[in-house]
């Protein structure tokens, strides 16, 4: 099957400062998003997520490299009719009401009046803003703007939906709504590509993720694999053994009055620690498995990136 998005060897630089110094923001970025998958694009602020998304949407041009959407060049107008896009921190025409706003975008697709009205009513219900349809956007709250932004991204019932930080500025109810919409799009066979720096959002809805740091893709894969690859250490809380005795044998994380927290790796490590505690007449308070979350992987990668530079 033709990938929904195919990015080939993208380079992008900006010039900034008084001497217009060139700064490379995307280094040889390649990525494939298959049709029908929910793909998370993860990275800390300033990693190049938004730049990549703007290039995909044809708002910005790469220095080198190509982007294809459903096998066609991304600047192709026909292909744009199959894409929905919600920019980061979207700003909208404040003078329009919610309804006029959605109608304006649907007119750009050349739909008939009857179809437009039906679609707008459906979307307003989906995002729960029917009551505010006739209110000017200047009176909308940030969360409401984010929602109406999502509605405009879905106005053409797109095959591919690109969302740049869709959950930012939303309250828990709004986040859940966005999450449900993404899951629902997935069920209906749509491709969703969305960026975020909030890992828990991605963990719940994405089939695959790519991690981008410093303009380079660090890893791509299923979340399960990315997390499994790098898991497993245990934290053991114990009492009654002095740190002097523990330090040569184990990694001591913290020590308070009588209690000590140590870190051990693997099943064998746990056994060794438990035997050691038994021999030294200590007391085990708790054994806590510490799975590495995406967040830790993130931080590890950033650190590694820093060391590389």
């Amino acid at each position, binding site marked *: 099957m033709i990938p929904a998005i195919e990015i080939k060897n993208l380079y992008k630089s*900006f010039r900034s400062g008084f001497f217009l110094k060139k700064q490379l923001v995307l280094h040889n970025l390649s990525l494939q998003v298959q049709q029908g998958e929910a793909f998370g694009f993860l990275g800390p602020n300033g990693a190049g997520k938004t*730049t990549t998304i*703007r290039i995909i*949407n*044809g*708002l*910005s*041009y790469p220095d080198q490299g190509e982007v294809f959407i459903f096998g066609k060049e991304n600047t192709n*107008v*026909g292909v*744009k*009719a199959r*894409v929905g*896009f919600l*920019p980061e*921190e*979207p*700003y*909208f*025409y404040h*003078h*329009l009401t919610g309804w*006029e706003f959605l109608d*304006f*975008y649907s*007119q*750009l*697709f*050349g739909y008939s009046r009857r179809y437009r009205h039906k679609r707008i009513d459906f979307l307003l219900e989906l995002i729960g803003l029917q009551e505010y349809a006739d209110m000017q956007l200047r009176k909308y709250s940030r969360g409401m703007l984010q929602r109406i*932004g999502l509605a*405009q991204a879905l106005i053409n019932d797109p095959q591919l939906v690109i969302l740049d930080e869709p959950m930012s500025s939303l309250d828990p109810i709004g986040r859940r709504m966005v999450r449900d919409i993404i899951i629902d799009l997935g069920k209906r066979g749509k491709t969703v590509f969305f960026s975020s720096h909030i890992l828990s959002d991605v963990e719940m809805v994405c089939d695959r993720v790519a991690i981008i740091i410093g303009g380079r893709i660090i890893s791509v894969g299923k979340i399960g694999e990315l997390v499994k690859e790098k898991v497993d250490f245990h934290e053991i809380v114990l009492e009654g053994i002095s740190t002097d005795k523990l330090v040569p044998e184990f990694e001591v994380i913290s020590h308070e009055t009588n209690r000590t927290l140590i870190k051990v790796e693997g099943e064998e490590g746990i056994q060794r620690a438990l035997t050691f505690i038994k021999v030294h007449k200590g007391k085990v308070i708790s054994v806590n498995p510490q799975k590495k979350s995406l967040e830790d992987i993130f931080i590890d990668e950033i650190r590694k990136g820093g060391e590389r530079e």
Partner: protein
Amino acid sequence: MKVYPIALNTFREAIRDRILYLLLFFALLMIFTSRIASLLTVGEESKIIIDVGLSAISFFGVLMAILIGITLVSREIEKRTIYNILSKPIRRYQFLLGKYGGLLLTILIMDFIMTLGLLLTLYFKSGRFELHLLLAMGLFFCELFIITAFAIFFSTFTTPILSSIFTLAIYAVGHLSWNLLALKERIASFWGKALCFMLYYLLPNLENFNIKNEVVHQLTIGWKTVLLAIGYGISYSVVIILLATLIFQRRDFV
């Protein structure tokens, strides 16, 4: 017809802008008060009203074109609403054409209201509609074709403040550029002549659209002059909008 919804939205945004009404208010105020100024003269009242009225319309018309023209395109870029529009299946030139169309429509309506104000003021003075003023207004509208095109042209690559200054400069230069031809005759050096000649044809000659004196003194105006001015206005604007499109096409939105 993707230009149409953009033009309509631009028009809608412009007429919901308070600045427009503020300018319109002052323009009408000036037109109506020209009646008072006319009392100071004897026998020339209508001429004074026409003179002051046309100047007010021209001054406020240009101000509207510049202020609204620049804010409407720059605002799209600054407020990033442009990201949404350009990700939809429209081409960048269609966006610019839509903006241009919407602006011209707004300005046309504003000019119409101001002209109506002037015609009514004159009607109350002389008891008849001075319809020959419409020709002056029509040509002035052609001038606004060019001013608006420049406002859009500048805002495709520079900041709103600079765009306003540049467009105002074009307006000022445009009304003085005819002097270049006179200057050319007085300069001896070949290169000096060539420079004057080149600048004259490069810069817009907005005096082509100024028939205020003829209208005030009720002189006859040849159709050839009028048609040439209209042709000039349209073709000059087309070139400027084309240039704006070329720049806008390559613009990186980051």
